[in-house]
């Protein structure tokens, strides 16, 4: 390999952005086409610096917008390279049109999304509005809770997305600022170990294979479009989760770090539980432990794979629980939250249909405090004690003004 290796300590103090940038370096990305945006900027900045310093053999393409960034990634990926980029919020929204192109063309691009609120009002802080915007785009979506996850899940993403049975693009999500700019100890892999896990890029139907010319980005109408979309959905529903599980298993052998499609904490005997995503999972775990000291059997379920949604695994994880809170960090704007809906769907046909409440929290980077979560667990326990839901189905947490509750 015609580039320098970097000596890393076993544990480095990295924020989520730098952890992701290091993972991109160690995966030896051929092309990054990027238009930096807060709070994801340091990821592509980091890649550019590693490239300039001779740690990567690749190409950084500077473009005029996020739409162009993802378009550049589509071209480079169709040409046959290992491709990644990063974005947030408004930039993610501008990419949306091309995200559907990337997944429909079955191009294994990795997109680090540092979750940030969507305007208006303009806001640079973390919530899940951009992540939710991408959930029907046909991409795989993995959720990191901390810088360590952001590092590890990038390797998992390449491993799964580039598998020839999968060939779907993958987003790695981390919370803006809370994860992206919070430095923590991150256990590293050496360059050789990390690269051998991801492996050499194996092109498929690449445009630079001149002996097998292909046309990418074709047009289909009512005669073919449905079949292509059906195939993509079929592959997401049947092939991706087993491949992610297999990647998690081999990553555990390599690193000792274990990831699951659905993360369960204190769930073995839990009566009440919180289901949430991102950095909130770690806060909820801490509060659950404290609630147990007060006699409430509290647990936490963290969503690790957002798409494809682990429908069966969620139902299994929530088996035997009496009251559940689904926490959505994105304004559903006229509906129950996404997690509420998905979990309701997963539980509806099960025998022990637990009481399910939805909570909207943390918009625009508003803190979710331990006190919020302690109150929430107490409310869930009150539901259990009363044998029925004592509140409205949807409530807002941490918003100023009169109590907001609906349904």
């Amino acid at each position, binding site marked *: 390999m015609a580039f320098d290796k970097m000596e890393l300590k076993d544990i480095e103090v990295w924020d989520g952005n730098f952890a992701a940038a290091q993972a991109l370096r160690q995966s030896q990305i051929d092309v990054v086409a990027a238009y930096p945006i807060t709070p994801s900027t340091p990821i592509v900045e980091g890649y550019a610096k590693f490239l300039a310093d001779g740690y990567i053999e690749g190409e950084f393409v500077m473009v005029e917008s996020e739409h162009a960034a993802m378009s550049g990634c589509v071209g480079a990926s169709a040409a046959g390279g290992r491709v990644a980029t990063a974005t947030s919020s408004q930039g993610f929204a501008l990419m949306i049109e091309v995200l559907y192109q990337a997944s429909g063309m079955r*191009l294994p691009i990795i997109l680090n999304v540092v979750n940030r609120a969507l305007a208006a009002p303009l806001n640079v802080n973390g919530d899940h509005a951009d992540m939710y915007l991408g959930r029907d785009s046909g991409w795989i979506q993995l959720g990191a809770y901390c810088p360590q996850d952001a590092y590890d899940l990038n390797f998992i993403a390449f491993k799964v997305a580039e598998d020839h049975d999968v*060939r779907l693009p993958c987003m790695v999500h981390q919370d803006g600022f809370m994860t992206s700019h919070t430095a923590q100890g991150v256990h590293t892999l050496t360059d050789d170990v990390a690269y051998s896990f991801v492996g050499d890029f194996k092109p498929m139907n690449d445009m630079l294979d001149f002996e*097998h010319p*292909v*046309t990418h980005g074709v047009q*289909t109408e009512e005669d073919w479009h449905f*079949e*292509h979309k059906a*195939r*993509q959905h079929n592959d997401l529903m049947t092939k991706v989760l087993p491949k992610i599980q297999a990647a998690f298993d081999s990553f555990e052998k390599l690193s000792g770090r274990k990831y699951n499609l659905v993360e369960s904490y204190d769930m073995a005997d839990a009566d009440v539980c919180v289901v949430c995503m991102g950095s909130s999972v770690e806060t909820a775990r801490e509060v659950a432990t404290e609630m147990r000291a007060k006699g409430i059997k509290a647990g936490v379920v963290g969503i690790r794979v957002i798409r494809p949604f682990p429908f069966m695994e969620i139902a299994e994880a929530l088996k035997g629980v009496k009251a559940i809170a689904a926490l959505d960090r994105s304004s559903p704007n006229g509906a129950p939250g996404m997690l509420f809906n998905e979990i309701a769907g997963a539980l509806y046909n099960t025998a022990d249909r637990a009481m399910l409440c939805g909570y909207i929290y943390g918009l625009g980077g508003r803190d979710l405090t331990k006190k919020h979560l302690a109150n929430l667990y107490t409310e869930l326990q009150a539901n259990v004690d009363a044998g029925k839901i004592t509140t409205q189905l949807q409530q807002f947490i941490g918003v100023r003004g009169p109590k907001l509750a609906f349904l």
Partner: protein
Amino acid sequence: MANIGWDEFEIGAMLRTFDGKIDDIAGTLQEDRAYSPNSSFVASVADWRIKKPVFNKDFCIDCQFCWVYCPDLSIIARDKKMIGVDMDHCKGCGICVEVCPTNPKSLLMFNEHTDEETALAQWPTKEEKE
């Protein structure tokens, strides 16, 4: 293309220009290439055309301007000699006529239904410069 089911085609909405491996495609004339049924080369788009170019070899100086400028690679030239127009792919844009430098022009646009003999009989004579 056959109406096959969702599980019977390659992923990625991509189409192969040739079935299987190809070799020395640059050195092979279009008519000798084994294009797959998915290649646009085998599909006629002649019905997109309202007017058609007619080639009159009596005036052509083989300058290749039409070949260079045609946006659809529809000028057929062999050994740097203009042979004619690929009427399956020509869309009748008229660029070849526009760039033709001869006097009179060696390519002119005619109505689609005008036959070649009639078109050639109507060909204008050399315009004298004043």
